[in-house]
């Protein structure tokens, strides 16, 4: 195989000496955080029924930032009842244009408080401040803004059908894009006239609580959105509660399957946005430097904690050596470290648990015979960090190729023909996304018709927009979020 070049940890280009960046930390003195957060139920901050709280940790320092209510079935029940009450008495019958105005207000307040939200997102989740500032928070505002506009236009989205809301939506979101995922879930639900009980991820609850403050300040009627913090116990109680009409879940395929089973005997609607193992395919006729940037962005964006991460790289044989050399050079320039530093490219791994999982996969990859290569950057002594990692000579049967690692770990394979790469790319239970890099347009569309995945990025990667539907094929889940199609899960068509 042509990728079998001798690799050492010595960079060919010297980026380490004489090239220091002055630290450029974002300040935290302007943010307001409480020492303790409760649930947000019926427009009030409410103490947990069980009286228990759990710490939320800054993964960059391993220090506690705040503590958060540990929800159980009693809290969920209270929240579902509040949501039902608000649905029947206020929200369901409010004219769409008026519902939309609340969503516009929320979008505007998110924009106004963007800096505070960015800082808290980075403190709580470990992602680089550059990403939370430039991607997570602006996109969250944009989602509310976009779906605000749909609230009074639903009849145009579904011609010849009477559009009705579904009822109470139970929504469970992951820790990789905490506020953004809350926006993806809440905005379309409210626009279509539903009310919500949201359970944030247990490692990243803080921006959801800031969002609760925004709902309050926007004058959103009590009970329209309720937020219950906690772990899987609260999540399970929400999914199984007879008072909800719809489940929206973003997270792992394993949990997604449990949810699908749990609601099998009910009339609950569901959308599942689950795991992925996306193929990022580089053809010989691609613009190589641009493609290398795309590989970097595909797998190292948000520490690789991205369900649609381009975690399998397929390089056409003739350019494999060149691409891998350039990829290694580029990886050597990535700055791993303090997420609050504006120079940082790769922040902290979200939690100790996730750190352990990634480290386990690194061992598995080596044990299976793939060749591991990491950049030799400095990483902080405390906090959870992982050097950007690639595995050369990976093969289809390797677990690092088949399973979602959810970290900055890329498995590299080569291919010769289009048919071969389509076969390999589709050979996975997942089907969330894929990337194609070539200067030939007809090849792009050939690939997009044949790749079994919900989002295909051509000569770009990891792009998101409120107008663009996102979601998976196969075991990456079903239902779409974003765009006109993102309304579908939140309406009943009569």
């Amino acid at each position: 195989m042509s990728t079998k070049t001798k690799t050492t940890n010595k960079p060919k280009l010297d980026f380490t000496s004489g090239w220091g960046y002055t630290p450029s930390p974002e300040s935290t003195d302007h943010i307001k955080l409480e020492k303790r957060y409760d649930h947000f139920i019926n427009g009030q901050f409410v103490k947990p029924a069980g009286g228990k709280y759990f710490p939320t940790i800054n993964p960059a320092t391993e220090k506690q930032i705040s503590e958060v209510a540990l929800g159980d079935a009693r809290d969920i029940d209270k929240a579902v009842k509040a949501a039902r009450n608000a649905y029947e008495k206020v929200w369901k019958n409010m004219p769409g244009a008026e519902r939309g105005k609340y969503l516009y207000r929320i979008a505007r307040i998110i924009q106004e408080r963007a800096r505070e939200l960015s800082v808290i997102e980075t403190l709580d989740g470990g992602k680089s401040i550059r990403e939370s500032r430039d991607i997570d928070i602006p996109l969250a505002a944009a989602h509310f803004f976009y779906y605000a506009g749909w609230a009074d236009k639903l009849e145009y989205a579904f011609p010849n059908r009477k559009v009705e809301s579904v009822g109470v939506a139970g929504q469970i979101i992951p820790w990789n894009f905490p506020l953004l995922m809350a926006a993806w879930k809440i905005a379309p639900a409210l626009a279509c006239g539903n009310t919500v009980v949201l359970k944030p991820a247990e490692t990243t609850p803080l921006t959801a609580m800031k969002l609760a403050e925004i709902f309050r300040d926007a004058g959103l009627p009590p009970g329209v959105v309720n937020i219950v913090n906690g772990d899987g116990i609260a999540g399970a109680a929400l999914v199984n509660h007879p008072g909800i009409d719809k489940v929206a879940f973003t997270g792992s395929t394993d949990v997604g399957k449990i949810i699908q089973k749990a609601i099998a005997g009910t009339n609950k609607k569901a959308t599942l946005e689950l795991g992925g193992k996306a193929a990022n395919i580089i053809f010989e006729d691609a613009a190589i430097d641009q493609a290398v940037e795309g590989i970097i962005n595909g797998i190292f964006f948000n520490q690789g904690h991205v369900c649609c991460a381009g975690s399998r790289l397929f390089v056409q044989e003739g350019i494999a050596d060149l691409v891998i050399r350039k990829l290694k050079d580029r990886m050597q320039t990535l700055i791993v470290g303090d997420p609050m530093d504006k120079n940082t490219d790769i922040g902290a791994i979200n939690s100790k648990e996730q750190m352990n999982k990634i480290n386990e996969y690194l061992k598995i990859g080596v044990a299976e015979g793939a060749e591991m290569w990491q950049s030799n950057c400095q990483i902080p002594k405390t906090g959870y960090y992982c050097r950007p990692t690639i595995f050369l000579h990976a093969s289809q049967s390797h677990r690092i190729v088949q399973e979602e690692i959810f970290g900055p770990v890329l498995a590299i394979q080569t291919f010769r023909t289009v048919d071969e790469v389509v076969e390999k790319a589709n050979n996975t239970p997942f089907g969330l996304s894929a990337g194609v890099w070539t200067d030939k347009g007809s090849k792009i569309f050939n690939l997009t018709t044949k790749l079994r995945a919900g989002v295909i990025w051509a000569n770009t990667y990891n792009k998101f927009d409120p107008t663009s539907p996102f979601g998976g094929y196969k075991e990456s889940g079903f239902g779409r979020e974003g765009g006109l199609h993102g309304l579908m899960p939140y309406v009943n068509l009569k």
Partner: protein
Amino acid sequence: MSRIEILKTYKLYIGGQFPRTESGRYYPLLDKKKNVIADVCLGSRKDFRNAVVSARGAFNSWGGRTAYNRSQILYRIAEMLEKRKSEFIEEIILQGGNKADAKKEVELSIDRLVYYAGWCDKFQQIFSSVNPVASSHFNFSVPEPTGVVAIVAPQDSSLIGLVSLIAPIIAGGNVCIALASEKMPLCSITFGEVLATSDVPAGVVNIITGKTSELISHMSSHKDVNALVYGGKDQKEIKLVKENATLNVKRVFVYQNNWNKTESQNPYFIFDTQEIKTTWHPIENIGVGGAKY
């Protein structure tokens, strides 16, 4: 002694500026008792031509902006109008409206702007298509703004008619020159002040006051105007406009809706001033691949 009020000079709104008419002419706006409320600019053909130049200059930037950006700017117009509500209500009353109707009209105008703000990044999904052609091609059709649109605002309202015509046109990425209601022109120029402070780029909307009878022939025959939206009811004017439009195959739309009704808003008002562009692109060989998985 009571304070002497400062009276406002009503001028035109062209290219983001508030010039007087180049003609130096005016017409007096009278109240019910025949007292002069204001001297209104009697806009000229040259004013219109200047406005077309401004509009054309702004088209590339406005039409090329992201839909999200246009959406936020239209929403910003609504925000500004909401805060200046009382000013518009006063002007409508001054021009003969009653208080309750005036309030309703202004609030509806605000809501209509919000309505079209929402459409900026949505009408494309309603009117676009991916066309399943019987060959190995990726073929899709999308709306694009037609360009410079001339508007003859309805005579029977000062604000709601004007807003109802301008909003869908700029929501779709067009630029426009609106001729205000001759009888009730005050709100149009004040609305220009709202636009000027709402991040609407200079030249995207231009507003002229004056006589329809004097300007309509010129508006409909100007060769750098791509479409004309006529909000009046005069059959002779409609015929004239349609005939003049043939000079450069202008698109002409005659709207006679009751703008005070919430039903008088829909995305087809945006669609009217859109072109549809179809793109063909080859696909190496089409197929639903990987069926094995």
